């Protein structure tokens, strides 16, 4: 599994470096509004081609870019039912606290587990290469976190069962 992880993350990093060329662009339709164009998709000329990078059937990453904003949606690997539930709960926990992450989107895009929305204002405040490092590190760590959670659930379950059944011996 690890042999495809490196090229997958490298590909995502390179694509993000190319796609994250954002500049301020006030809304064309409404005066004095400044909206992330990738979310509204009102004008075709402001959008770039969406890029879908799949590692395999289960894991993929959708990168949609526009003139002033970039949306990255990730589907994480979920091998079985337990990982499914753990991933959903964990990522929902993170999404609910999207305010403190700044670049996280409150709701993931349909068909994906978690989404990031990076605007030109984020790029002005923070370093572009650091933002990309953050996203790639997030993707690396999410798999480790879910494996750890699964391990701790199984360990706890085993301990509880042992203690409970001890009273019957």
């Amino acid at each position, binding site marked *: 599994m690890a042999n495809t992880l490196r090229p997958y993350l490298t590909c995502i990093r390179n694509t993000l470096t*190319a796609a994250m060329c954002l500049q301020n662009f006030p809304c064309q339709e409404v005066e004095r509004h400044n909206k992330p164009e990738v979310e509204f998709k009102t004008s*075709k000329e402001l959008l770039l081609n969406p890029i879908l990078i799949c590692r395999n059937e289960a894991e993929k990453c959708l990168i949609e870019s526009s003139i002033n904003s970039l949306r990255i949606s990730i589907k994480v690997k979920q091998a079985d039912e337990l990982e499914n539930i753990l991933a959903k709960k964990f990522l929902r926990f993170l999404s609910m606290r999207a305010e403190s992450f700044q670049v996280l989107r409150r709701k993931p895009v349909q068909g994906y587990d978690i989404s990031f929305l990076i605007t030109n204002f984020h790029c002005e405040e923070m370093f572009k290469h650091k933002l990309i490092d953050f996203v790639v590190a997030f993707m690396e760590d999410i798999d480790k976190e879910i494996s750890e959670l699964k391990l701790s659930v199984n360990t706890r379950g085993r301990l509880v069962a042992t203690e409970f059944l001890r009273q019957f011996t």
Partner: protein
Amino acid sequence: MADDEDNASSVLDADTFIETESPEVIIARIEGKSRQVERLLRIPQYAEALETALMDAPTQTRDERCKSANWILVHRVLMATKDVDGLLMGLNPELHDILMKYLYRGLATGDRITCDLCLRLHERLFDMAGIGCIMRAISDTQNLV
């Protein structure tokens, strides 16, 4: 104000360009290419086969069959190649952009083997062609592959 709006909408509709060749002509040409590619793969000359497959790619048309037919051809060449580095070394630099677009198409399929191959090729092609190649692939909304 109404005049500005009319002008704007006519500019936006300009993406319905006039197709210079009919889909049948393009498909016939792709079939000719596939015979040539099969012959080159049998020798085997992978670099020439890839060049033949990438040359004259149907980017100017909107017909999905032509695009799928050419993609199948490119896919066949990429799967048949054993030596990834040698393949890219010998490739004409003008074809780097088209190859990058096809790699992204391959990555979107989701098939494990194809994605594995496309990820490796993407890394090598990025080292050779640089970030401009990716930039052109994602910003070109007219010539889709």
